[in-house]
């Protein structure tokens, strides 16, 4: 992924021909009225999702045969980018001829798949997957309106990765059952975080309520607690990590340095979800020692790596 992410731009080159065609000539764009519903002998449903201020909004119109619950006409209007327009057009088409409950099963993954030219090649680039999510949400809103229930009642699970529709419970189960320890493994097992990547950690395309790094850390901590065993370094809070590091300094590192007339203090510790960076300042004989940047530094790092492989030590 690294090489492919070095050069930006040119998103549109990664759109399928179907996506391009639906952007230019949406087939189901338009609106339906009470008059249309009357003529077709059905009930008009109008559902809105999103808002202009968020950059994406869609309105879905259905005419539903109330005897059979079948959607007999489906149209949309959209305020969104080209991907949102193409996704909404596809979504409106996929709803046609289905019952409302069947339509509820259409996800943004189905919408994206339906827009592929080649079944093995995604229809849109990963960072555009979030534009198809609204197509899924507006169906739920339309179904809620038709059934006369709240939108939330149709949300049966808490979704963490909206692009791949992966729920919190699926992610936690995958971690527990397969003993996963990295975010990459979560993505391999569940597809969560495989598309726009916003759900992996803060700083992505959009802000999320839950991030995979936090879910992984918390689940590992829960698992360790349940086992009653020693808590792993990766699952500790930053406070506990600091204590654990200091314990190694006091117990293993400083006694050896003091013996030679030197010492070391921790200048700072930087905690990233994936690694720890410990900055140190030498004191006494160590401050001027020729091997402080080589052998001694290596010794300190090795001692700390007994706690966790992803600890790096640097001198300041």
């Amino acid at each position: 992924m690294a090489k492919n992410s070095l050069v930006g731009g040119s998103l549109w080159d990664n759109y399928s021909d179907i996506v391009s065609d639906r952007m230019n000539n949406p087939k189901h764009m338009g609106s339906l009225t009470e008059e249309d519903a009357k003529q077709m002998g059905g009930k008009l449903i109008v559902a809105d999702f999103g808002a202009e201020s968020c950059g994406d909004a869609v309105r879905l119109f259905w005419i539903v045969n109330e005897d059979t619950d079948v959607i007999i006409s489906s149209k949309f209007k959209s305020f969104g980018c080209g991907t949102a327009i193409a996704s909404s057009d596809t979504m409106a088409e996929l709803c046609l001829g289905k019952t409302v409950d069947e339509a509820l099963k259409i996800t943004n993954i189905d919408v994206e798949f339906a827009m592929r030219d080649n079944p093995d090649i995604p229809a849109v680039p990963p960072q555009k997957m979030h534009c198809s999510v609204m197509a899924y949400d507006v169906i739920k809103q339309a179904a809620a309106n038709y059934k006369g229930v709240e939108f939330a009642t149709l949300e049966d699970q808490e979704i963490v990765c909206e692009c791949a529709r992966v729920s919190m419970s699926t992610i936690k189960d995958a971690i527990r059952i397969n003993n996963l320890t990295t975010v990459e493994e979560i993505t391999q097992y569940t597809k969560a975080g495989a598309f726009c990547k916003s759900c992996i950690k803060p700083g992505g395309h959009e802000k999320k309520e839950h991030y995979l790094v936090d879910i992984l850390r918390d689940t590992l901590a829960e698992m360790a607690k349940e086992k009653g065993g020693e808590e792993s370094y990766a699952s500790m809070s930053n406070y506990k990590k600091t204590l654990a590091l200091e314990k190694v300094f006091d117990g293993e590192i400083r006694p050896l340095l003091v013996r030679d007339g030197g010492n070391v203090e921790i200048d700072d510790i930087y905690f990233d979800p994936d690694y720890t960076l410990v900055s140190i300042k030498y004191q006494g004989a160590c401050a001027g020692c020729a091997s402080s940047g080589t052998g001694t530094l290596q010794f300190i790092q090795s001692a700390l790596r007994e706690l966790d492989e992803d600890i790096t030590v640097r001198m300041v």
Partner: protein
Amino acid sequence: MERIYLDNNATTMIDPEVFKVMEPFLKDKFGNPNSLHSFGTEVHKDMIKALDQLYAGINASDESDIIINSCATEGNNTVLKGIYFDFIQNSDKKHIITSQIEHPAVSHTINFLESLGTKVTRLPVSPEGLITPDSLKEAIIKDETALVSIMWANNETGLINPVKELAKIAHENGALFHTDAVQAIGKVKVDVQDTEVDFLTFSAHKFHGPKGVGGLYIRENLELTPLFHGGEQMAGKRAGTVNVPGMVAMGYAMELATSTEALEYENKFVRSLRDRLEDVINSLDDTIVIGDRNYRTPNTILASFKGIEGESFLWDLNQNGIAASTGSACSSEDLEADPTFVAMSIDADLAHTGVRFSLSRFNTEDEIDRVIEVVKKSVKRLREISSTYVKGE
């Protein structure tokens, strides 16, 4: 279909005359200017000429420096990190003032310096979208503010800040003044002696020169810790083999872009094309052009088309061979609204509907006529699709 390029604030086409001047340095005149043999020395006089053109272009004194580098991002990093090493780290001057509408080349670098302990004030813009002298006067701390860094012209709106007054206030309070002038060169007169700026950055590809070469002006008698250490190129102020083809091309591009005639052409002809397009946009229902045209670079329009998401508009324009740009978050690396819109307190609804048209001296009347037709057609089509557009609301 003949394509029309209206994204000149992003980058410009290389002037064919500039390319002609550059070409020999990509072929026969390949010598390293630091070499003592004839291959090296034969390019020396061309480099001197390029420097003369650059100094003349911004009216720099011969006692000042213009460091040739790779781009304005490098120049901005050099100034900001240099100030960090020269003042923030080792003196009581730990304060930098900047604006909320800077390009990421400045704002992200300052964010980084902030993480190292620099005290930062980010000035808001006035309702007109400008940084006012009064807001700087309020924020500046005598003998504590090391640097004021305010862009000359904004890349999104084209609005031109009162750099001369701002630099004066900085100096009165013992601070240095830096301006990122990438959007100003070749569009308005840039005179470093008249404006008294201490550091000014520019990039050749914004004024019809090649990409990958830029310049940093440093006022006479000012020292700045280099960003790149190494050889003694650029008098030790920027190590690394000089990009001679780029430097020579940038010098000529500067001469072409900043001559009195060129600026007059920009201010009359390019402005007239811009105004023609802007007048038509203004005549459409529910559109807004951001910023008074009298305070903008003559080539820029940032317009909001109610009910039309910016990227879908760009797609439509592109289908018709027209290249423009959008501040719409959906087309960028993250979904945060454009900081310029946020700083200008522009309604969040409009932040997703902004489209920027930026012209150049290579655009023609016929092109603008075609753009006008396409804009009208696209606005109609996309508003028919729009779920949020209601006329007049």
